[in-house]
C-alpha cells in the first residue's frame, strides 16, 4: 500500500525528536499567544513567522502548522471565556461558548471544543492523506459562478446565527456586507467608502471588527452595572463535561467534521464558511433550537469541529497545487520559499518526506494540543476568578498590540475604537453581531465572484444556473430559505389564527 508506506515516511519524518520538539514548541507558542485576547491565528503567525525562518524546511513548516492549530485553539479559548474572538471561526464559538461560561460551564465548553477539534482534526488529516489528489480535482471545478452560489448559501445561513428578530439579523448581515465592500475596488481601482484614508484602501481589518463588535462591546456592557457583577458567575461549576454533555456533542461533532472537511478543500475561501454553516445546520436540526444562543453544547461542538476540519483540509490546495487558501497558508508558502521549497504540484513527488511529514505532523500536533489543553482547562477557567476590573485593562492592552501587529497600521486601532462603539450601540438596540461578521467576511467574496462570473459569462446571468455545481448550490439555497422561513410563517399564521379566535 502506497498510503501506508507514505504515512510511514511521514511519521518517521515528523516523529524525529527534533521535529517533535518543534511541533511542540509551535503548538505551545501558538496556544499561548493565541489565547491572549484579541490575538487570533493571523496575528499570532505574523508575530511568530520570523522565528521559524532559521530552521530546516520540514521543521519550520511543522512548527508553523503547530502555531496555526495552537493559535486557533487558543483563539477559541478566549472566545469562550471573555467573548473575544480573534478570528472569524471563533466568532461562532463565542456565541454559545460564552453563554456556557456565563452559566458557570466554561470548563465544559472548553473541553467540548477541545474534544471536537481533536476528533475533527484526526478525521480530516486522514482525509488529506487519502484523498488529497482526488479532492483537488473537484476543487478546481469551482469557478466564480460556483463560489458566488456557495457564498449566497452561506449568507442565507446567517439568518440562523441570530436568536432574536430575523429582520434585524438580515439587516446586520447586509451591514456586514457593506462594511466588507469598504476599500479599493479590485476591478477598477476605485477607492470606496474610505473617506480618503489610504490606510483603509485594502479594506477594514477583520480582527479590528471582531474585537470591536464582540469584545469591546461586551466590556462596555459589563461596565454598565459595575456594582452588580453579573458578568461571570463566581461559581465555576464542574470542569468536565457530564455524560449527557458528551452524548450531546457526538452527532454535531460528526456533522461538523464532514461539513468542515468539504468546505476546507475549496481554495477560494470555503473554510471561512465552515463554522457558520455548521452552526446553522445544528440549530436547524436540533430538537431544542431555543437553546442556541443561550449556551448550547451542540452550538460549540459542531462549529469547533467544522472549523478544525476545515483548517486541516485547507492544506490540500496548498500541498497539491501550491495555492494558498487563506492568509495563513500564504505565510506557509512564504516560509516554504524561504526554505528553498517552491510550492506547486510537484511537491508531493519531489519532496515526499516534507509532504507526508507535514500531514503526519497535523495529527501529532492535534494530539499534542489535546494533551496540553485538557489539563490547562482548569487554569483557564481560574482566569475567570480574576476581578473583571483588573482583567479588562489587560484585555485592552493585548487587543491594541494584537491588532497593530498584523499590519503595523495605526488606522486599524482607530477602527477598533469605532467598531467598539458601533458594536455597543447595536447591542443596546438588540442587534446581534454574529451575522454582521459573516456578512463582512462574505461581502468581498460575494461581490468579487459575482462580477467575475458575469465577466467570464459574457454578461449572461444564466451562467449561474447552467453550470451544474452552481445550479445545485442555488437550489440548496432556495430549499434552505424555505425551510428557514416556514416555521416563522406558520408561527405568524398561528398567531393570526389565535387572535382571530
Amino acid at each position, binding site marked *: 500500500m502506497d498510503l501506508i508506506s507514505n504515512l510511514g515516511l511521514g511519521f518517521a519524518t515528523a516523529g524525529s525528536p527534533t521535529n517533535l520538539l518543534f511541533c511542540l514548541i509551535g503548538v505551545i507558542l501558538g496556544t499561548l499567544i493565541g489565547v491572549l485576547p484579541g490575538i487570533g491565528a493571523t496575528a499570532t503567525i505574523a*508575530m*511568530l513567522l*520570523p*522565528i521559524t525562518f532559521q530552521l530546516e524546511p520540514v521543521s519550520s513548516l511543522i512548527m508553523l502548522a503547530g502555531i496555526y492549530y495552537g493559535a486557533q485553539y487558543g483563539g477559541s479559548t478566549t472566545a469562550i471565556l471573555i467573548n473575544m474572538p480573534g478570528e472569524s471561526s471563533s466568532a461562532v464559538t463565542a456565541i454559545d461558548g460564552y453563554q456556557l461560561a456565563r452559566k458557570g460551564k466554561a470548563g465544559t465548553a472548553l473541553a467540548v471544543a477541545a474534544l471536537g477539534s481533536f476528533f475533527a482534526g484526526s478525521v480530516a488529516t486522514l482525509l488529506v492523506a487519502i484523498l488529497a489528489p482526488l479532492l483537488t480535482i473537484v476543487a478546481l471545478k469551482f469557478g466564480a459562478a460556483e463560489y458566488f452560489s456557495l457564498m449566497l448559501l452561506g449568507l442565507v445561513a446567517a439568518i440562523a446565527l441570530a436568536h432574536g*428578530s430575523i*429582520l*434585524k439579523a438580515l*439587516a446586520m448581515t*447586509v*451591514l456586514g*456586507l*457593506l462594511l466588507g465592500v469598504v476599500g479599493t475596488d479590485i*476591478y*477598477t481601482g*476605485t477607492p*470606496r*467608502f474610505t473617506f480618503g484614508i489610504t490606510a483603509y484602501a485594502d479594506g477594514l481589518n477583520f480582527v479590528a471588527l471582531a474585537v470591536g463588535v464582540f469584545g*469591546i462591546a461586551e*466590556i*462596555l*456592557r459589563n*461596565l*454598565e*452595572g459595575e456594582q452588580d457583577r453579573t458578568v461571570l458567575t463566581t461559581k465555576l461549576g464542574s470542569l468536565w463535561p457530564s455524560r449527557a454533555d458528551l452524548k450531546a456533542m457526538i452527532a454535531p461533532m460528526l456533522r461538523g467534521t464532514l461539513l468542515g472537511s468539504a468546505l476546507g478543500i475549496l481554495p477560494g475561501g470555503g473554510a471561512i464558511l465552515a463554522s457558520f454553516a455548521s452552526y446553522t445546520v445544528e440549530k436547524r436540526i436540533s430538537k431544542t433550537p431555543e437553546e442556541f444562543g443561550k449556551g448550547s453544547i451542540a452550538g460549540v461542538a459542531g462549529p469547533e469541529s467544522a472549523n478544525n476540519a476545515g483548517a486541516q483540509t485547507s492544506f490540500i490546495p496548498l500541498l497539491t497545487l501550491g495555492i494558498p487558501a487563506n492568509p495563513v497558508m500564504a505565510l506557509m508558502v512564504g516560509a516554504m520559499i524561504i526554505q528553498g521549497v517552491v510550492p506547486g504540484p510537484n511537491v508531493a513527488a519531489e519532496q515526499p518526506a516534507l509532504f507526508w511529514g507535514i500531514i503526519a505532523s497535523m495529527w501529532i500536533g492535534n494530539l499534542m494540543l489535546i494533551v496540553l489543553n485538557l489539563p490547562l482547562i482548569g487554569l483557564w477557567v481560574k482566569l475567570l476568578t480574576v476581578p*473583571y*476590573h*483588573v482583567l*479588562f*485593562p*489587560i484585555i*485592552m*492592552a493585548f*487587543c*491594541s*498590540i494584537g*491588532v*497593530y*501587529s498584523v499590519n*503595523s497600521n*495605526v*488606522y*486599524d*486601532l*482607530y477602527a477598533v*475604537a469605532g467598531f*467598539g*462603539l458601533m458594536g*455597543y*450601540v*447595536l447591542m*443596546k*438596540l*438588540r*442587534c446581534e453581531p454574529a451575522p454582521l461578521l459573516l456578512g463582512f467576511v462574505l461581502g468581498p467574496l460575494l*461581490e468579487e465572484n*459575482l*462580477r467575475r462570473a*458575469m*465577466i467570464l459569462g459574457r*454578461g449572461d446571468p444564466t451562467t449561474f444556473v447552467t453550470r451544474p455545481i452552481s445550479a445545485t448550490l442555488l437550489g440548496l439555497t432556495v430549499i434552505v430559505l424555505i425551510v428557514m422561513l416556514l416555521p416563522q410563517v406558520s408561527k405568524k399564521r398561528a398567531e393570526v389564527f389565535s387572535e382571530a379566535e
Partner: protein
Amino acid sequence: MARPINKTDAAAGGLFIAVGVLFAVQSMGMEIGTALRMGPGYFPLVLSGVMILLGAAIVFTAFSSEDEPVGTLAWRGMMFILPAPIFFGLTVRGLGFVPSIFFTTLIAARAALKMSWLASLILSVAVMIFCTLVFSVGLGLPFRRFGPWLPV
C-alpha cells in the same frame, strides 16, 4: 387604543435606514456600470437599497410590539475604553512601545470606578513589563521600545 412603540426597534430601524442612505449616496458618486461590467457602485448601491428596505421593515414592526427598555449606558466605559486603542495608535511610533502600552493600560483602567489610581498604576506597570518582555524581547516584534519623541 394607541399601542406603545418599541423604541429600541424604531431606533435600530432608523439607524439602518440612515446607514443605507449614507452608503447609497456615496455609491451614486461612483460608476454604476452594467450587469456585464459592474462598476464599483453597483453592488453597494443594491445593498444600500436592501438595507433601507430592511430598516423600514424594522421600524414598521416597532409599532406592533411591546416597548423594551434600553437600560443604562456605560458612559464612563465609553469615555475611557474607546480612547485606549486610539491613544496606542497615536503614540506607538512617536513615544515608542513601552511608554505607549503603559498609558494605554492606564487609560483603560480608569474606566472602572473600582480601580484606585494606585491600583491602576501598578496594573499598568505590570502590563507594560509583561508586554515588553513577551512581544518586544521574546518575539522580537519590530517595535521601537522608546520613540523619537522622547529625549534620549
